[in-house]
């Protein structure tokens, strides 16, 4: 099961709103909202494909500029 740490950059002043939006996704845990329009979140999914899909979906969320994978683990658990 893959586990990833991601950094999400948002448009200026939108990070609180975005964190609310992304927290609604299954398998996404928001770990912190940083003062420079960035959000740190952890993503869990069943397969790498599902995970990539999830990251892609986060990309589509309103006011998200980029989603950056900072840590990725997909060994079997």
């Amino acid at each position, binding site marked *: 099961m893959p586990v990833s740490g991601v950094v999400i950059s948002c448009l200026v002043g939108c990070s609180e709103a975005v964190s609310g939006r992304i927290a609604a996704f299954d398998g996404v845990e928001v770990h912190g909202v940083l003062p420079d329009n960035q959000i740190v979140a952890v993503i869990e999914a069943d397969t790498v494909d599902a995970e990539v899909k999830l990251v892609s979906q986060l990309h589509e969320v309103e006011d998200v500029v980029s989603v950056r994978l900072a840590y990725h*683990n997909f060994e079997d658990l």
Partner: protein
Amino acid sequence: MDSSTKHSGITRRRFLKDGVLLPLALAAAGGGVSTLFLRRADARGFYLRPPGALEEGNFLAACIKCGKCAQACPYNSIRMSGAEAGVAIGTPHIIARETPCYLCPDLPCAKACPSGALDRKLEDVEKVRMGTAVIVDRENCLSLRGLRCEVCYRQCPLIDKAITILPRHNQRTGVHSIMEPVIHHDKCVGCGICENACVRDKPVIVVMKSPPEQKDYYEF
């Protein structure tokens, strides 16, 4: 002549000789001799000898300090030690950080040795045992910090034998691997090319007489 010596001639020449020059001479000679004997080996506790050198005790017994090995080295890697070497004065050694041994396939230095201090029958450079490389400062090794350095590995004349690369996961970045240089002491000839090539100010990989002592029998 005798009478003059007894009276006045004694003064200046005698004084000069016995009072100043003789003590000075004794001090110089004594100082010279004692520096020869008091200091021994370099800070690392051993001299990197040319390829084919006998074990240090035997080497010192057999070396007659003729310098032929140094003259035979095409890279001027071999130097003759000076007074600072004590008992080993005048013996050939290599300062790897300045010029390592490049392991000429025909080993001209060993062939030049008249007295058997260097084994002239040595044919295979892979059988040379001058010492072994050791990573002495893991904290400052760039490769161990995840950077793509591994200069020691790529420049090793016994690449993939004496030094291999063990990749492992870099926990910090999560997506890169740490390419760890691993030294195999049974294959390392101790030529010092890695020590020479290390890009840190103070080389983190150096040649030592033998790997640091192990207190168990695990072999990694």
